């Protein structure tokens, strides 16, 4: 009973805080509302992934160009949700703790020939090794060797199954549905089994994230909501790390530097341009205390921006504008990303990517100033590193 009363009180406080003028909001209000956003966005991702599982099941039951296309669309839709949640990385939260969920979900690059045949070696991979078990347990064990990055599960493993190798300048991979039909491709049964199992594993991990942020439980969220300014510091670390180190650095600058046709995050589906947009949007979500849910409703409440604005309106406004500029710059990047990175420094695509990098870099500096404005100084706003 007492528990329930507490929750009611918290809900009332939250509602009040959302309506109250900015200066009345506390660190705890902002942390609580943020936790609600994190939970909602992981829950949306899980729901989108469940839809994806349905589409994949339909495809596997009756492989055809049409069912494959539906499965691909559901993957792309789920990525729109997941990309926004990457703003919750880099501060040792549930996505980055010792369970290494991020490593299983989003590991890249995907060692495709470890999983299935590739152009030069059509018989490679565990799909074609009929002695290798394909179960959740065996795939998990495969990735437990020392601290190595995952090599065979997650979003990009599913992406590889649905699209196949991207061997084309003009678009994504063109895997044929026949790869999954007995008699039309070798080991089609094992390919079906592999796709089914990696999808299940992905759902398990997303479910764990939803649980970690679920309200009213003894979980990470409960601790996060209690920590006040420390939780705000984590939020800033996450935003700054994703802005500078991960998105501007690892995903955009590295690709610009290597000019490798496939040195891009979602290389099989040519969806990298959307990864960048979803990341930039996720950052803005946290800053503004706003999240547009999958069902069309919007969560809006006490935010970092409000807290900063109460101390230093100029810095808050500058940061807000810079984030909008970053999002717009990311939206201007054209598909396919692997063509956008090629050429001299004055190539239009490279300039569009460079503009996004520059805006994100400025944004990371604005975030430092914003954090400083509310007394948070011990920030390490650069490297994402993390899984």
């Amino acid at each position, binding site marked *: 009973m007492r528990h329930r009363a507490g929750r009611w009180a918290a809900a009332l406080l939250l509602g009040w805080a959302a309506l109250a003028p900015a200066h009345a909001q506390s660190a705890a209000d902002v942390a609580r509302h943020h936790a609600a956003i994190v939970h909602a966005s992981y829950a949306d991702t899980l729901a989108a992934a469940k839809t994806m599982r349905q589409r994949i099941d339909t495809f596997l039951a009756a492989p055809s160009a049409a069912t494959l296309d539906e499965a691909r669309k559901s993957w792309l839709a789920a990525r729109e949700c997941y990309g926004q949640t990457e703003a919750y990385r880099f501060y040792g939260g549930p996505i980055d703790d*010792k369970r290494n969920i991020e490593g299983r979900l989003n590991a890249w690059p995907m060692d495709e*020939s470890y999983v299935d045949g590739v152009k030069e070696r059509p018989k490679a991979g565990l799909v074609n090794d009929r002695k290798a078990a394909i179960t959740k347990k065996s795939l998990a064990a495969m990735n437990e060797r*020392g*601290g190595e990055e995952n090599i065979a599960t997650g979003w990009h493993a599913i992406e590889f199954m649905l699209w196949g190798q991207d061997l084309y300048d003009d678009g994504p991979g063109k895997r044929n549905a026949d790869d999954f039909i007995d008699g039309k491709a070798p080991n089609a049964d094992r390919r079906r089994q592999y796709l089914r199992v990696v999808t299940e594993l992905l759902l398990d991990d997303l479910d764990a994230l939803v649980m970690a942020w679920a309200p009213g439980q003894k979980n990470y969220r409960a601790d996060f909501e209690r920590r006040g300014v420390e939780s705000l510091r984590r939020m800033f670390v996450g935003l700054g790390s994703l802005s500078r180190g991960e998105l501007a650095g690892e995903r955009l600058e590295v690709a610009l*530097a290597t000019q490798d046709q*496939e040195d891009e995050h979602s290389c099989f589906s040519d969806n990298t341009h959307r990864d960048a947009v979803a990341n930039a949007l996720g950052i803005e979500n946290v800053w503004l205390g706003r999240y547009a849910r999958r069902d069309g409703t919007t969560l809006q409440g006490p935010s970092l921006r409000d807290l900063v604005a109460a101390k230093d309106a100029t810095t808050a406004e500058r940061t807000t504008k810079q984030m909008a500029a970053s999002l717009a710059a990311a939206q201007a990047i054209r598909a396919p990303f692997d063509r956008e990175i090629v050429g001299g420094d004055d190539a239009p695509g490279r300039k569009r990517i460079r503009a996004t990098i520059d805006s994100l870099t400025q944004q990371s500096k604005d975030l430092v100033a914003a954090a400083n404005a509310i007394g948070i100084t011990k920030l390490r706003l650069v490297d994402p590193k993390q899984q």
Partner: protein
Amino acid sequence: MIARVCVVVAVLAAASFVVASAEPDPLGVRVGGDTTVDATGRNAFSFPAANLPDDERTRFAIGNSFFRRNWIEAGSSTKARDGLGPHFIARSCGGCHVQDGRGAPPELRGDGTHDQPVALLLRLSVPGTAEHGAPKPDPRYGDQITNAAVQGVRPEAEIVIRERPVTLAFADGSTHTLRQPSYALKRLGRGPLAPGTMLSPRIAPQLAGVGLLEAIADADIERNAREQAAAPGPIKGVPNRVWDAFASEMRIGRFGWKANVATIAHQTGAAFLGDIGITSTRFPEPSCTFAQADCDAQARRPEIDDATLGNVVFYQATLAPAARRNAGDAQVRRGERLFHASQCAACHRPSYVTASAPFEKMTSRSLAGQRIWPYTDLLLHDMGEALADHRPDFAANGRQWKTPPLWGVGLIRDVGGHQRLLHDGRARGVLEAILWHGGEAEASRDRVLRMSRAERGALVRFVESL
């Protein structure tokens, strides 16, 4: 009147002097000077130098990507990152240096079995020396065992680890049981080892601060050796002198458990080849020492280009050491006094001011001129029979090991979830690492055996504050 004015001027001058020379830091909290980051937790070793300029942060991010991301087998879509193997130990630098941290040996199960190690490798050599005085590789297996291989290729061997208990008694009557490991190979894929082949286990160390260690002046290291030679007592450290493939000359060794590598660039190129099977300009030969059908004779060479390798070197060089925690705590201060009283600092020299690093294009100017607190003399010392690997490595003999830096020791657990220390990770925690000290350090070790439980606790707490 004139005198009074002078006094005022003098006071102002003194005040401005204090401001101009960085804030006083007698406890060495800012262990890397201006590069120091305030970091704890899982990412504590993974941040760039705090004073790294923005344009260099780009390079850090690129280097990070190639350090951490898996290399994959040739034939994949991601051409910039293929070329793994054919033989390898890990798929990425980060496979052993997880989160830029220290690796751990596999835990032995109740029946004595264990997983194949990833972050622990076995170096191999036969008696005699190769070019430049380097260890002479085993004619079949080269200079280290690679216990993994790409699909369709048989790994060179499996590593077998056994442990036996060794019990030490403290003066206060309590005891502590260490576990002494030994190493062997089985399932050798290419016939037996050459007669007299020596094995030396080496664990992957944490990396934060290596760029600053590289920027310590040779003269400082040589002075450490001279001062120890002149001092009474058993401590007589000597520098290793090793061949550097990038400088193309013999240099003072600083890295590796026997100071068997002089520069981060050489270490990185050698590890790409030996540990991941990635060839580069300075290390062009694939990791096979004999004609074998499964060697990647057709592979693109070099598999990592100079610019990318330089970025990975730059990345490691600019990883920042993390500030000390609890430096002013009374127990920590007590431990610090015991550390000095027990002569630990004779080898674990606390502090230096950095000069500049050897290869301008693979480091940052941010690292130069910093007051740093690594707690090492970078010299080789006889550490006694129990630690000896009986395998020479350039000037290092089979009983000598380099004094490892102590900065970051207290964060190894945060980053990697373990605290396995010493060259093969045999020590479980700081106290065990101290108890394994022998040879030149025996007298210091014996002082610790005579300490009370509270004193031992304070000493460990001090080391963990670094």
